[in-house]
């Protein structure tokens, strides 16, 4: 009986030691990581690059010309919102004369019967995401996501949120 218990304890100790050894191997020491970084046989596409210090901090000048790509009708709401909110940009209908391009996606979900019964709301659920890209450099300079679970004015509300935050970005408040 005593032998059995001692064997079991020995087995458990060995198992624990093995697990600990595996854990310590998976987190290399700084010295080891330096050695692995300096290995010449590392593939070219795995070279670590420092992220740019000023990520997406490019200034968007007021009065820039913006082309809004077709977004299944949402582009029209976005144009209206940009004009309503006084966002200091000029919306153009031709990508060739534009400085920036806005692309994105939007989704709408109408309130179902459960939402009407339990929440007493018939307002839709709206979400949209837009990205603004500098057409000269191809760099995404700004992006914004909006999600409104009870959107008071449907797509109009979500597009106005985007326009408001774009205005803040241009004016340097965000």
């Amino acid at each position: 009986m005593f032998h059995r218990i001692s064997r079991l304890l020995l087995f458990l100790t060995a198992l624990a030691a093995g697990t600990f050894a595996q854990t310590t191997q998976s987190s290399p020491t700084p010295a080891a990581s330096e050695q692995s970084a300096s290995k010449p046989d590392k593939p070219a596409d795995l070279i670590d690059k420092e992220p740019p210090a000023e990520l997406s901090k490019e200034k968007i000048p007021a009065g820039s010309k913006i082309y809004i790509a077709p977004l299944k009708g949402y582009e029209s709401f976005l144009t209206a919102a940009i004009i309503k909110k006084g966002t200091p940009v000029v919306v153009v209908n031709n990508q060739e004369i534009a400085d920036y391009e806005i692309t994105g996606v939007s989704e709408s979900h109408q309130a179902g019967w459960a939402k009407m019964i339990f929440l007493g709301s018939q307002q839709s659920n709206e979400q949209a995401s837009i990205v603004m890209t500098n057409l000269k450099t191809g760099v995404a300079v700004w992006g914004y996501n909006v999600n409104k679970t009870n959107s008071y004015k449907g797509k109009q509300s979500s597009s106005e949120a985007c326009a408001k935050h774009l205005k803040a970005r241009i004016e340097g408040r965000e």
Partner: protein
Amino acid sequence: MSGKTLSLLLLLMLAPVSGLAQDVAKAIPAGSKVFVNPMKDGFEKDLITAFEAKKVPLEVVAEKEKADFEISGTSESKKAGVAKVLIMGSWHSSEQASITVTNLKTGEAVWAYSVNKANSAHGKRSTAEACAKYLKKKIESKK
């Protein structure tokens, strides 16, 4: 000193002119020719009818080449379901629409408007007339 004063005076004189030029660039003159692009669910027809009903001072043309401005946009309509009728007690449809007026010479969007009606009394007609009413206001403001 007098040179600086003269420059300042010239600047002050030109500033309002520049602002005026911007306003003119964004203005939609009465009697302009507009082309209404085809829209989802034939909303362009409702819009043209609304222009007549609301007496919007624009001339709608069938060919884009003859137009000064173009109107593009979209419209969405959702009829009241059983839940809305029973729980909310409303059988009116939910409508939303958005239109953009673009100057065809400059390619710039000069005016745009969005409308959302959760309980639209006359369906698409209501949203189209809202667009027409505000477009008329924009034309009459001459800005």
